[in-house]
């Protein structure tokens, strides 16, 4: 799958590979020892956030799990 920033797809793939391995082998097994992906994530984010700004995609201003909290009927 491609990144929204055409130039970021390779960085995205590198990060995804690192993340998937960490997720399956460490995170889900309760291993809390450091995150080996911080560097690849940083590089990828720098690229993709710039692409998002350039394309004026309106990602800001919504809290995490935020929209329409009153839809929660529990």
């Amino acid at each position, binding site marked *: *799958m*491609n*990144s*929204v*920033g055409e130039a*970021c797809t390779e960085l*995205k793939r590198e*990060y995804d590979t690192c*993340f998937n391995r960490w*997720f*399956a082998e460490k*995170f*889900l097994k*309760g291993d*809390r020892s450091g*995150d080996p992906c911080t560097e690849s*994530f940083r590089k*990828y*984010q720098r690229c*993709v*956030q710039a692409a*998002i700004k350039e394309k004026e*995609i*309106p*990602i800001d201003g*919504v809290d*995490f*799990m*935020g*929209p*329409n909290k009153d*839809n929660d*009927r529990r």
Partner: protein
Amino acid sequence: MVSPCRVNQGNNGEIFLLCRSAKKHLGPSLCCFLATISQPLQVSNHVLTEDIIFREVTPTNCLISRRLLTKTSRAPRWMERYLPKHMASSAYIIEDSIVDPQKRTMTTLTWNISHARLMSVEERCHYRINPENGSWTEIKREAWVSSNVYGLSRAIQEFGLARFKTGVTKTMKGFEYVLAKMQGETPSRTLAETATERARETALAAKEKAKDLASHAQKKQYV
């Protein structure tokens, strides 16, 4: 045999999917997480891009992430006449997710950030181990559809719900496909027949209703 997914409907209209976990040691969280992230690849050729734009491990050791997806925008012809001509042909969607490896649960919240005044769709999914049978993953799925377009909101809501219901079938296909691949099998093309049948019928009925409401709304404008 391909791991099947079964579709049940809750009393409040929520849709439950019960999917058998591919391998016991993977557990439902990994199974569903992988299924969710690869699902767009397998089934929907309308997803153009996928990016993680935020990710963090919380102090309680939960993984929270935000994803940005872009999809081609598919509006039916009766709706197109109401859209401004220069409207973006891409749709942008955000998905927030929380994975709790201790509780073996995952929650996702997905909503569109483009075309939102025309039609706003929000979907929440809860994934957990089925309490009655530990080798099944239970997915509870709820959606809210709303529109602010005067005179058309009912039609658009029905359309949105129809698409959501059709989407359940695709979601099942997506899960089946990924689960089969994880088991090292060739994915089967068959689906639980009741689910497909019901989804198709409901989708058709809702689509017809939407068309109907739209043409009535149009007539009313000239009265």
